[in-house]
């Protein structure tokens, strides 16, 4: 058969389209010049500059704390939601729960952010909690939309899980709670790790939702970057963006690997 010459061409075009902007950003992060668009030789000085910037460092620390906490909460809640949806059969409000747990996937960030902001304000007036807005409200907001992703990942894993595994554990004398932690959780662990990493990167990336629900003193990294860029792009932002890209790429890479491993184990 004749080899199709167009196929590699389209593949290359696709890759260029996707990765050229990122690549140029990474290249310019090693630029010596203070002017972002003019190449002035190789240097790593902007990475050093970055480490001496207290505003960026504190924002990075907040982002990290938010991402770890909300990813963990989202994984727990998302797993429970997925468990209920796959195992409890038809129950009252099942359709509603399915819809609500998937809603953040399709909801525009602006709407999610605005509705959560309104909720927090109303709650503060009614029950006095959460008092003001800051890291807590960002964590709650991120947990909300990350949970949707965890639910989807965990749900497909639960559905493909051989139920006789759990029956076997029960048959051997384990009570239901014991079965869940001894058998169910370890078997679906790869999906949970994948869900956690996905949540972590989503939380780290989010700008819109966080901007809506944040308060004074709690600026996440994307928010700091955005405000700096508005005053003009400085080369240290390129360096910062490169680091974030590296972290996200590693996170997504591990998540994908974990999901594949889970699928392979399940298949074999």
């Amino acid at each position: 058969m004749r080899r199709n010459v167009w196929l590699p061409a389209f593949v290359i075009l696709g890759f260029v389209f996707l990765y050229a902007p990122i690549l140029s950003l990474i290249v310019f992060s090693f630029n010596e010049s203070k002017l972002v668009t003019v190449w002035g030789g190789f240097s790593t000085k902007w990475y050093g500059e970055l480490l001496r910037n207290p505003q960026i460092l504190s924002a990075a620390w907040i982002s990290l704390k938010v991402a770890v906490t909300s990813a963990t909460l989202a994984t727990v809640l998302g797993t429970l939601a997925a468990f209920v949806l796959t195992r409890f059969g038809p129950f009252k409000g099942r359709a509603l729960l399915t819809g609500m747990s998937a809603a953040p996937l399709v909801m525009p960030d602006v709407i999610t952010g605005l509705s959560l902001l309104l909720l927090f304000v109303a709650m503060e007036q009614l029950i006095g909690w959460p008092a003001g807005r800051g890291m807590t409200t960002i964590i709650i907001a991120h947990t909300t939309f990350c949970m949707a992703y965890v639910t989807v990942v965990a749900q497909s894993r639960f559905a493909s899980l051989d139920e006789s595994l759990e029956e076997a554990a029960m048959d051997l004398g384990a009570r239901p709670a014991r079965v869940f932690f001894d058998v169910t959780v370890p078997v679906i662990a790869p999906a949970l790790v994948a869900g956690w990493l996905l949540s972590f990167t989503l939380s780290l990336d989010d700008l819109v939702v966080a901007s809506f629900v944040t308060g004074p003193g709690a600026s996440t990294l994307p928010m700091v970057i955005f405000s700096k860029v508005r005053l003009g792009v400085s080369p240290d932002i390129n360096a910062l963006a490169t680091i974030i890209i590296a972290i996200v790429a590693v996170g997504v890479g591990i998540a994908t690997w974990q999901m594949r491993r889970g699928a392979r184990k399940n298949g074999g």
Partner: protein
Amino acid sequence: MNTPVPVATSKPWITGAEPPFIRISKVTKRFGDFYAVDDVSLDIYKGELFCLLGGSGCGKSTLLRMLAGFETPTEGRIEIDGQDMAGKAPYERPTNMMFQSYALFPHMTVEKNVAYGLYRDGMKKAEAMEKVAEMLRLVQLTPFASRKPHQLSGGQRQRVALARSLVKRPKLLLLDEPLGALDKKLREETQFELIKIQESLGVTFIVVTHDQEEAMTLASRIGVMNAGQIVQVGEPPEIYEHPNSRFVADFIGSVNMFEGRVTEDEPDYIRLGVADLGGSIYVGHGVSCVLDQQLWYAVRPEKIRISRTRPDKTENVFRAVVDEIAYMGNISIHRLKLPTGRLLSATKANLTRHDDEAITWGDEVWVTWDDTAGAVLTR
């Protein structure tokens, strides 16, 4: 109809010397309008290897799952060793189950899989490990103790599943298609191993299978199921040679079935007029029936003799032409065409390696069987 029953004192279902160990009485399981199990009553005795045999969807697995506690009967009562099982969860029952998929925990080693049930009973590690080692010796898996399930072959996994379900010494072991996933050769070896293990431990086994050969080899008794009901219960030879219905005769092994009407009804014989044969079948024993009643006659292929020369008798002798021969190695299956167009199958053991005189395609032959070779069926 007089059924010759083998006499043996070790068969409590005949002697009634001991009470049944498992009592299933009038158990029904409905899923909506569907009767998965329909009014089943069954007594099983201690130390038996009982096979529930039936096609897919006949309710055999549902019955097994009710014994394990994964399903609750809609009606009826299940007793194990005198204890009513109603309201008992699977983890409270003196039963263990070996699953069709084996259901080995993929994240645990062989050793931990087998030990899992012992730890749930609160057994100390040293004692549990001793029992696990003993069990692994029994199923010849000692060298594989620290492997994970996905590092084992199908046959080894099957043995881990067996070890795990037996290590707690349950009063009753339930096996769901235990040999279903093994290839033919391994299945034959494992059958005998399973019987040996069952005999050495003295645990009562209930095996669910759709494979009639497997049931015949393993079972002390077989319960044939169809459409949620038990059609016949009996020892393998009884089921094979004395089926109580067309369903059982047809389901177990192969059979030539004839529909006929009673033309003579005497105390020591009856005669059936069979249109398919263009003649009559002489049955050499009395049958409780009336003249002109519709009956069925089932005769197994190996009971039919074929020859080139006319047999030296007058009853149950028919002419036929060899239509097809299937050579199986140990036997050959002959498909014979009667003058009426009806096909008949007969098997012949290949006693010699080569036979110049062998009956072949297109030969005109005589077909005959003994007057006690077939079973007369009323339903």
